[in-house]
């Protein structure tokens, strides 16, 4: 029986390969910009290019990157998950509190955290696919609910870093093969995720559902299952990010990770994932996170007050999405011209 994805209409297939070429360009151009910017910034602030600074930027960016990979999976299916920050916060508090109460070992706590993220992702998936609630509405609702649960559980308690096991938080500064552990974790997740996307039926179905839901439905792809799985994975990765959050920041209370959703979605968009679904890469989302962290760090070091950061973020997002549209238009022009010949 022919692979349904291969049998998809030519235009979509053609578009797919065009866009993957474009996507690769996006990641490369981001890296190129970072390179050039890095050079410029290091003239003004030589501390920028030190390994301690760069690894710090990378470590903090990897938390967002992990969440961004999950968010990218969801956005690829033409949905959005606004509740990730609440998942990260709730998981972070749960893990920190369990460790403070000495109820479980560090490894157990981390597993519980990731599992909790998975459960929250399943809730999102269920509300969206079983109850047919549009994802923007559903995750707006779960954002409120999960954060409410977080506040309820945490109250005014703050888990101090002293409450955590001795070497738990030192993992954020540890390294593996010369790279910070967090960066390795993010890297591995991107690798595994990309392999999943490229080589498995699920991955291809994910792209199909996002780029052309009607065609996917006609071809018998179980869209609901695909979307459900995407949200489950997003929740799980947010859980991983939550565990990393505890390790990095140590002190956790009910408001942990408030406001993070902007950075995560921005990272995904800047990384070249199309908000209409169907194109973009997980690596792009991760690089987008790194890019944004990079800019934030450069601003601080160059001496621009922290009040400029928001405005620059906004300009970066607008720039990225405009570039996306320009490229897409050129691709479509080229496709039309090609067909006309």
């Amino acid at each position: 029986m022919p692979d349904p994805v291969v049998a998809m209409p030519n235009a979509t297939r053609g578009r797919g390969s065009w866009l993957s070429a474009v996507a690769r360009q996006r990641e490369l151009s981001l890296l190129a910009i970072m390179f050039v910017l890095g050079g410029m910034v290091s003239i003004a602030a030589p501390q920028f290019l030190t390994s301690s600074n760069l690894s710090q930027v990378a470590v903090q960016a990897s938390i967002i990157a992990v969440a961004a990979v999950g968010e990218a999976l969801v956005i690829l299916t033409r949905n959005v998950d606004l509740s990730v920050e609440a998942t990260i916060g709730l998981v972070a508090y749960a893990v920190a509190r369990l460790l403070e109460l000495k109820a479980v070992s560090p490894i157990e706590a981390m597993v519980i955290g990731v599992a909790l993220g998975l459960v929250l992702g399943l809730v999102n998936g269920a509300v969206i696919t079983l109850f047919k609630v549009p994802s923007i509405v559903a995750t707006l609702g779960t954002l409120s609910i999960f954060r409410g649960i977080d506040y309820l559980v945490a109250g005014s308690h703050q888990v101090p870093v002293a409450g955590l096991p001795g070497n738990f938080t030192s993992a954020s500064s540890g390294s593996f093969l010369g790279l910070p552990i967090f960066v390795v974790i993010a890297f591995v997740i991107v690798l595994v995720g990309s392999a999943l996307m490229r080589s498995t039926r699920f991955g291809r179905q994910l792209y199909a559902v996002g780029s052309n839901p009607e065609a996917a439905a006609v071809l018998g792809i179980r869209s609901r299952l695909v979307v459900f799985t995407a949200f489950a994975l997003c929740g799980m990765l947010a859980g991983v990010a939550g565990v990393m959050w505890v390790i990095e920041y140590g002190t956790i209370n009910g408001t942990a990770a408030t406001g993070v959703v902007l950075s995560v979605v921005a990272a995904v968009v800047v990384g070249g994932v199309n908000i209409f679904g169907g194109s973009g890469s997980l690596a792009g989302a991760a690089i987008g996170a790194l890019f944004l962290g990079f800019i934030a760090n450069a601003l601080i070091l160059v001496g621009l007050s922290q009040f400029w950061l928001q405005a620059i973020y906004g300009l970066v997002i607008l720039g990225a999405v405009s570039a996306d549209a320009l490229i897409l238009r050129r691709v479509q022009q080229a496709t039309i011209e090609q067909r006309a010949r």
Partner: protein
Amino acid sequence: MLRTRGRLVTLIAATVLLAAACSSSATTAPVSAAPATAAPPSAAASSAAPASAAAGGITVGYLPKDIVNNYFAAAKTGVDKAAGELGGTVTEVGPPTADATLQIPFIQDLTTKKVSAIIVSADDKDAVAPALQAAMAAGIKVVGFDSSPAVGAYNVFVNQVDFSGVGVNLADWACQLAPNCTGDIAILSAAATATNQNAWIALMKTTLQLPKYKGLNLVATVYGNDDAATSTTQAQGLLTKYPNLKVIVAPTTVGILAAAQVVDAAGKGATVKVTGLGFPNDMKPFVKDGTSPVFGLWSVPDLGYLSYWIADKLATGEIKGTVGETFTVPSLNGGKPYTIGADNTVILGPAFQFDATNVDQFNF
């Protein structure tokens, strides 16, 4: 058809509201009429009679900046203790984030419920003023603590520490921790608009002008917004940007903890010291390992205790809250009387210094 139904629906809703509006009970004083610059109302309110003003049995609303910061949880232990001794009930209300806009509805609802007194730490001194003045007009006593509402929007403000004293303390500690009282220092504060932190920092800067501190060079003031993650990032930025930094001064319990963690994690505890205002429980490990040999605070539970005590005495009429008035609180201040000073302010006491010799004795 839509238009008729739509209009019908709106008409029903409007009727519901009007009916409610017309059924106002006689004892409710209007709560939305006070403009911001009205003079503070006299203590004698006309119509509204707040809940029983007899000694004991008062109801108090406790409204901190936000209900997530454990600083206010610590203060509440003192509030509860006083309520237990003096007899009375305390309800804690407040927003999940330090947002003045969110504090206003709570003040209004406490006013509607006619509590005897409100103990409040203001997120923004002017934003909460109209609502507090309306409460005062309704006969409710308002006791500010930690972060003051605007002058005129409270009966008494309990200042946790003598501002100028803290300013000197902060400068002194920085001087102690910098080698030969010389080197780069930086400040990591809370929110950029926080009244108390800004006052302390201003006084610290004034103190730094004195000849004794001329070796210290204040290179930066950054804001952590009392958020652990932001404070961490800002502290890391300081370390990177100023490689010769000797001391980080953080006059906020969230900031000092984040800064100490960052310095420790970077392994720079020997060359970069952290000081400021912090909880003993949080900072014990950093005193032990030398990152933060000296810092300070005050008894936060005592702050809560004093605030409740004053609220109770105001509600029962035992004290009036006027400038110059003195009173004694049995278990505080070593039995010495407090005096209400300018702007109806009472000062809890001087900042208390914690270091290796005494930090283990405290548990908050």
